[in-house]
């Protein structure tokens, strides 16, 4: 059965209704700059819309992988994170790089690897970098399930459009990054959950509840979150958990700089030459890889990349 018969017109109807209710849906076509978006937020379908058949099974598998990545995609995960740790509410929440918005903007050209990436290839990168693991081969059931789950969430949304809530918010650039201030913010507002050493915390049965922000079990130096720009946007919108948008921009930038200037697993693209790897992949004032901070040259003593299986 094809997608059209599989999915009902539910979300499209919802978008139309929301528009009729006063919110003028101004969407941004890809590639255009600066267009204002006044559309009501896109609402992905509820779980109850997942069909009770073989197709629905794959959507459910994708949802499970997204939520419990280490258990459901063990061979490809090298740290203690889950996809949903950075894409909140199982990939549904706007401004935390939701899956429904991501699904619409691929295939896309990415400067990171200088070619057009399909959605599946984008997902491979998440495993290699954010999960410090190994990319599942194209066509692997893990990628198929994740893509199917994303398509389910995106159902009814306009393909090729950049919807409000896509990605993480882009904060206005700061005058500078103040690591000492970042350390204070961290101690006051983050350490309660993520631990003074950034290693996160587990419940008595060993389940990781508060994910690690740096160290051997967190995202590696190639991950999007290791760029202070992404981390600041994510943190501003979503942290401390349940108190999104409570930090000032300066607090978000400085605490992001603080966590992204601690050691973490090596960039899998590391050539053996730190300066050359920095130049090739980290050449930005918002990236601490290869820089000396608190007497440590970051990347020099990094734990290994791609530690799989778990």
């Amino acid at each position, binding site marked *: 059965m094809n997608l059209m018969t599989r999915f009902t017109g539910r979300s499209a109807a919802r978008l139309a209704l929301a528009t009729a209710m006063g919110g003028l849906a101004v969407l941004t076509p890809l590639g255009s700059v600066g267009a204002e978006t006044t559309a009501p937020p896109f609402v992905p379908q509820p779980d109850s819309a997942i069909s009770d058949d073989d197709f629905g099974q794959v959507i459910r598998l994708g949802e499970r992988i997204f939520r419990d990545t280490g258990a459901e995609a063990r061979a490809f995960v090298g740290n203690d994170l889950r996809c949903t740790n950075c894409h909140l509410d199982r990939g549904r929440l706007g401004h935390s790089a939701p899956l429904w918005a991501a699904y619409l903007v691929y295939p896309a050209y990415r400067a990171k690897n200088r070619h057009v990436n399909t959605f599946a290839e984008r997902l491979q990168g998440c495993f290699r970098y954010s999960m410090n693991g190994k990319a599942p081969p194209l066509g692997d059931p893990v990628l198929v399930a994740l893509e199917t789950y994303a398509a389910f969430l995106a159902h009814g949304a306009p393909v090729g459009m950049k919807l409000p809530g896509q990605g993480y918010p882009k904060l206005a650039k700061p005058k500078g990054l103040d690591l000492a201030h970042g350390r204070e913010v961290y101690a006051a*507002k983050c350490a*309660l*959950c993520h631990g003074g050493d950034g290693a996160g915390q*587990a*419940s008595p049965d060993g*389940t990781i*509840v508060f994910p690690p922000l740096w160290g051997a079990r967190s995202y590696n130096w190639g991950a999007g979150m290791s760029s202070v720009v992404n981390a600041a946007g994510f943190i501003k919108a979503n942290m401390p958990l*349940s108190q*999104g948008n409570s930090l000032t921009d300066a607090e978000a930038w400085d605490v992001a700089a603080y966590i992204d200037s601690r050691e973490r697993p090596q960039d899998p693209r590391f050539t053996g030459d730190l300066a050359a790897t920095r130049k090739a992949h980290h050449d930005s004032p918002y990236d601490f890889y290869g820089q000396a901070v608190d007497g440590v040259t970051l990347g020099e003593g990094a734990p290994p990349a791609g530690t799989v299986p778990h």
Partner: protein
Amino acid sequence: MPACASCHGDSGGGNAEGGFPRLSGLAEDYLAHELDSFADGSRDHEIMGPIAQGLAPEERRALAVFYAGLRAPPPDGTPQPDDTAYDRGRMLAQTGEWTKALPACAQCHGPAGQGVGAAFPPLAGQPAAYLAAQLSAWKAGTRHNDPLGLMKGIADRLSDDDATAVAAYYAALPVTAIGGGR
């Protein structure tokens, strides 16, 4: 001063009928923080306030150490909540309601409500009436001793029905996962 055991049970296992919470196996620092809060009024309670004020700071710490080390048997016969409330309670506990900026309770209290570290107490197996009373106390402002004001924010976003449903869900979870049941 009445013995703690007269309300909290012989080995600190609590009392579901009276709505007295279990103390056994809770983290020492959490228990000490709560006794200090009763004493300084940041957790305003007519019974526990005078009791905690009557204790010296060292006594409060000693009681926290004592109860943190106790192991009470699980309560006999966990309550069985009705189906619809249970489903709603489970949803709030395990998935959350992000359109209201409500993360899942499990994201701070652990997947089976068994608590995390010293700051996030277990909820599993605590009396439903006790759990619901805490949520109302945060809403009313009579309990304002929570780090970063986290629980105030959560409680304010729960309707009374939701608070009842999620309290019933946790009351029915087995305590065996926490120190208290072993």
